[in-house]
């Protein structure tokens, strides 16, 4: 679908734009990553407010995790999380085997570093929001 390509292109430009506009020597330290993470976090907050508006109240952490893995991931990435693991002590590992924002990148070691930059922005949308929810107690 055409709109997905538009978003991917925009996302690419955002990531490279943030890195280009960084001052000298900042590429190595975490400032760019933090900026991207915060952007993703803010977008995630708005998305979450809209999506949870009509869902039932979350009873416990498992409810929250199920919502993120199924409803949220489907709405944003059009597929569900492939694997969810937990150690029952507050750590959850979500595994997505075909992450939508990275599928267009070629599968070789050449772009590994760039892939991780794109990953930082999008993944943090959900994982930080998860963190926020879990701390609601």
């Amino acid at each position, binding site marked *: 679908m055409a709109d997905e390509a538009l978003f991917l292109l925009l996302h690419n430009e955002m990531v490279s734009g943030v890195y280009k506009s960084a001052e000298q020597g900042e590429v190595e330290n975490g400032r760019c990553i933090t900026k991207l993470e915060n952007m993703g976090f*803010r977008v995630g*907050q*708005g998305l*979450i*407010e*809209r999506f*949870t*508006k009509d*869902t*039932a*109240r*979350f*009873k416990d952490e498992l409810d929250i995790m199920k919502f993120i893995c199924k409803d949220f991931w489907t709405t944003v990435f059009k597929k569900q999380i492939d694997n969810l693991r937990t150690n029952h002590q507050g750590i959850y590992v979500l595994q997505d085997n075909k992450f939508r924002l990275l599928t267009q990148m070629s599968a070789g070691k050449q772009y590994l570093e760039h892939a991780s930059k794109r990953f930082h922005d999008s993944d943090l949308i959900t994982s930080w929001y998860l963190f926020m*929810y879990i701390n*609601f107690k």
Partner: protein
Amino acid sequence: MAVCVAVIAKENYPLYIRSAPTENELKFHYMVHTSLDVVDEKISAMGKALVDQRELYLGLLYPTEDYKVYGYVTNSKVKFVMVVDSSNTALRDNEIRSMFRKLHNSYTDVMCNPFYNPGDRIQSRAFDNMVTSMMIQVC
């Protein structure tokens, strides 16, 4: 119809609070503050039988002699508290629910505004207008 509307953040500080009769505002602020305890009680696991656990609307929190206080908690732990006049007996539960729905919709719009930082006071004019429309039918 509503005499006072308040939006309370997750950390229990007010994001937006407005009362219709502009004198004696402190009394309403205090009522909203005390109602937070009741809200916490209702959403904790203890009160399992009292409130339908799957609903966001909490219902009547507590009645005082002049006013009734209603509550609503979103899934992101933002609380909406509404104080209505007890003498206005025409207000049914469904109307209160629909008022909270409108509040939630407007709050979602405020959240999606990229110029709004979550945690700041809500200063959106659209939100103000929506709240005014809920409070204006008093006369």
